[in-house]
């Protein structure tokens, strides 16, 4: 960085720190194809890939990644829409309950895969975004970085949110906790929990008034 700029910033009481990315721009990113929003550190690059499910179906997936200095941010969206067909193609002995298990266990399976990488688990618990259930993991890695992950499933998509930053940086909760899920019309999904007559926790969808549309998507706030 130019020394004059550094002096100016210091004079203004601003510390330039690549660890926190003072000049890092956060955008409210939305993707209608994979139906999610998140705060990204710049426009992400999108990579098509595959994901091997717990029952060994090779599923299509996309990785959305935007890095800033040493900070790495990504969302992996796994599409289970064709999981049943892919499971049967893999093994004709596929049982009727393999598909539900593969989908219902998807969050747990993804969390297990993250734990297997090693490091020190500092937080490992259920979480919900807009009352969409999932899991959060905080890990101090062996290379002295911190990974904050959130894994959520809505219908046939699993969203694996990961942020990895140097341990000297503040925890990357801004990224980890900004995920939102959209429906097929671009409306942000939110639920409310309630207890039914049997005491079971159920959920009802509620209106958020947030509609993403266009290319690139932009947000319209609708009256509620």
């Amino acid at each position, binding site marked *: 960085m130019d020394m004059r700029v550094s002096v100016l910033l210091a004079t*203004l*009481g*601003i*510390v330039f*720190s690549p*660890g*926190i990315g*003072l000049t890092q721009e*956060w955008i*409210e990113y939305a993707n209608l194809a994979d139906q999610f929003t998140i*705060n990204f550190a710049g426009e992400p690059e999108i990579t098509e890939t595959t994901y091997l499910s717990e029952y060994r179906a090779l599923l299509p997936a996309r990785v959305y990644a935007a890095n800033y200095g040493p900070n790495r941010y990504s969302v992996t969206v796994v599409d289970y829409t064709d999981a049943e067909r892919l499971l049967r193609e893999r093994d004709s002995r596929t049982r009727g309950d393999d598909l539900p298990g593969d989908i219902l266990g998807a969050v747990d399976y993804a969390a297990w895969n993250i734990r297997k990488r090693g490091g020190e688990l*500092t*937080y490992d*618990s*259920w*979480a*919900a*975004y*807009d009352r969409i259930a999932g899991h*959060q993991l*905080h890990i101090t890695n062996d290379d002295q970085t*911190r990974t904050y992950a959130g894994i959520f499933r809505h219908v046939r998509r699993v969203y694996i949110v990961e942020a990895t930053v140097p341990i000297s*940086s*503040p*925890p990357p*909760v*801004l990224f980890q*906790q*900004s995920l*939102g899920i959209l429906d097929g019309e671009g409306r942000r999904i939110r639920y409310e929990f309630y207890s039914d007559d049997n005491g079971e926790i159920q959920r009802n969808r509620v209106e958020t008034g947030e509609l993403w549309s266009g290319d690139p998507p932009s947000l319209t*706030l609708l009256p509620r």
Partner: protein
Amino acid sequence: MTLSRNNVVFAFVAVIFMVFPAAAHHSHQNFIRAEYLVMQGTVREIHWLNPHSWVYLEVLGSNDEPDLWVLEGAAARTLFRKGWTTEMVQVGDDISVRCHPLKDGSPGCLLGYITNQAGVEKEFD
């Protein structure tokens, strides 16, 4: 963790009522919601975003070395509706906060309240 008394008030205050909006974006299990952490520091970054706004606060530790805390607040549009303006908290301001710290012990916290440089305390949630 202990912090210098000269520069930072570090206290856990047991709260009787846990206050978080019914319309919170996400669950708050990862924060210690039954306690408030009180800190004073200097704003190094502030991001008025949705679904959450964020304040990066530089707090002097017990060794007089700065620690950078990340503080989560409500969505920007919620804060603006509640009367917050971007002029009320700005980079370089000395503020105090009451927030719920992360369970994992890292320097992150869920607001809570901000007392701005003008001495006005206001909910940032």
